[in-house]
């Protein structure tokens, strides 16, 4: 099973049912050590169940997996020594303060009282929660809670970290902070398995991605790979003068293709546009003297990825799956090209 290659996670045919639901149905994974590996899929795809099996919280009913060379069933304790988990639900105690949470974990990991307190303070400082250290976690903002959660996962730096939807529900600023932390972690040599519903997040962070749907891996590759197979994103422009929208629509129809009027009176969008086309479209608008307040080429949504990969839309069970995190204005052309 363990081949001695530099694979942090090796899973083959992992499966798990809950009653009649086949939550995970034969997942194969090969995660290289020292990388961030993204598991991308809509709500209910089986991401959390996969992570919980790999983190030894539940036992698979089919297949096998090894984490850092240890079998997740036979050597569960050895795996626990080396990994840590930041779950989808905040894995911190809401009825305790942030500092108490970290001191508690320090104690549980074997630090002396004094060392646990020092470690807690160091982490609170580094993760920018020192000022809220004495407040109960239930009064924390979403971003602070997530940062504390991640801090709790590295009280002892793990060799491998599971991150389950770390930015779902966060505002763009908090999301960027979490991304920074994740990058720093991997920079220090930790391997990260990241579950997410956002192509953009996987694209920003992951070196490799597995797309998972209904408990199965349906595509695998680098982010570039995946985007190439999907190809295009959607161009969105907002005009300075709403009165010129019809005129702008005609220009765009000619240069990029079918255009849709957005609910917002000055905005237009067009899906299935590659970066070059989008650049031409924007240039044409400028040449026609139509002023733009803003334009962006947004990444393909998870839905578009799924449509391209499977021919059917992602069967998301809630809104979060289809609306990615808000895309900052700077997040535009060159990123996709």
């Amino acid at each position, binding site marked *: 099973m363990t081949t001695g290659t530099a694979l942090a996670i090796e899973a083959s045919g992992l499966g798990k049912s809950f009653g009649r639901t086949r939550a995970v149905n034969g997942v194969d994974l090969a995660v290289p050590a020292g990388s961030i590996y993204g598991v991308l899929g809509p709500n209910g795809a089986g991401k959390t169940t996969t992570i*919980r099996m790999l*983190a*030894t*919280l539940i036992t698979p009913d089919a297949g096998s997996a090894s984490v850092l060379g240890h079998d997740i069933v036979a050597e569960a*304790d050895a795996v*626990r*020594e080396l*990994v*840590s*988990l930041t*779950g989808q*639900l*905040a*894995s*911190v*105690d*809401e*009825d*305790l*303060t942030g500092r*108490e949470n970290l001191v*508690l*974990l320090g*104690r*549980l*990991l*074997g*630090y*002396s009282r004094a*060392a646990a307190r020092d*470690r807690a303070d*160091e*982490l609170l*400082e*580094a*993760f*920018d929660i020192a*000022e809220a250290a004495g407040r109960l976690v239930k009064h924390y*903002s979403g*971003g*602070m809670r997530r*940062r504390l959660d991640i*801090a*709790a*996962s*590295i009280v*002892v*730096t793990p060799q491998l970290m599971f991150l389950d939807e770390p930015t779902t529900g966060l*505002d763009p*600023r908090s999301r*960027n*902070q979490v991304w*920074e*932390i994740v*990058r*720093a*972690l991997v*920079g*220090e040599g*930790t391997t990260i398995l990241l579950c997410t519903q956002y192509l953009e997040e996987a694209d920003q962070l992951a070196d490799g991605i597995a797309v998972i749907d209904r408990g199965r891996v349906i595509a695998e590759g680098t982010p570039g790979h995946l985007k190439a197979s999907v190809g295009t994103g959607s161009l969105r422009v907002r005009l300075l003068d709403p009165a010129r929208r019809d005129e702008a629509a005609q220009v765009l129809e000619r240069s990029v293709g079918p255009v849709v009027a957005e609910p917002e009176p000055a905005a237009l969008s067009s899906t299935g546009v590659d970066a070059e086309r989008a650049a031409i479209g924007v240039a044409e608008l400028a040449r026609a003297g139509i002023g733009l307040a803003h334009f962006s080429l947004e990444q393909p949504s998870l839905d578009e990825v799924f449509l391209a990969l499977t021919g059917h839309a992602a069967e998301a069970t809630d809104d979060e799956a289809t609306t990615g995190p808000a895309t900052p204005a700077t997040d535009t052309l060159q990123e996709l090209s």
Partner: protein
Amino acid sequence: MTTTTPAPTTAAVRRAISSTPRPPRPGPLTAALAFGWRGMLKVKHVPEQLLDVTVTPVMFLLMFTYLFGGAIAGSTSAYLDYTLPGLLVMSVLFTTVYSGVALNTDLTKGVVDRFRSLPIWRPAPLLGSLLGDSVRYVVAGTVIIVVGVALGYRPDGGFPGAVAALALVVVFSFGLSWIFSVLGLLMRTPNAVMNAGFMAIFPLTFLSNVFVDPATLPGPLEAFVDVNPISVLATASRSLMAGEPDGAAIVVSLAVAAVLALVFIPVTTRLYRSR
């Protein structure tokens, strides 16, 4: 929301990540005590929990003493002498139901996943939280004794007798609470645990000698009341308070607690891992 705080500097994060030599695994006792500390912190941060477990027994104390005391024992003060040690038992036993409720509430939170993914001695989280719970047991029992004394209760065993009775009841509750931990692990919601728990403990308390002398009961009922462990515990508590310890009742109470713990600790530990 985080309004004015700057983003954490990557450098500080990196330093925090790299500066961790791994300490040796903690021993079982250290781990359990750490969870005990967590239990205490919860009592400190969520003191309302204590209110739940003390108000009801105090209400019973007042109600029974003044409403039925005269009818049952001839006078309120005579009844207080009889019933207070029993109310002590009831008050603390009710608190054990909340241990199961708290455990169930815990399970709905993500933090349990973190605890379960730690390489620690398996029963530590459960033992530890019961340690924290014992504080609640002591508080609940103390409140009843203090209110009793305020109402004129003067046990012949004096202060040492009261402390001994309280200690016995707390030890018994420590054993009993494992049953409610099992309920807490099996049932879906904290409310269901509460309902099931009180459904069991209410009749058992009333069908004991806590409130009435079983000699006044019809035969079959009296037989049941006599073997009810809660009666035995109440008898032991009464004897300690009175300064004339009933050795047999004390030993039986402790034995029941030990058996409950021995049977249910492994069950609870297994359920905690697999849920």
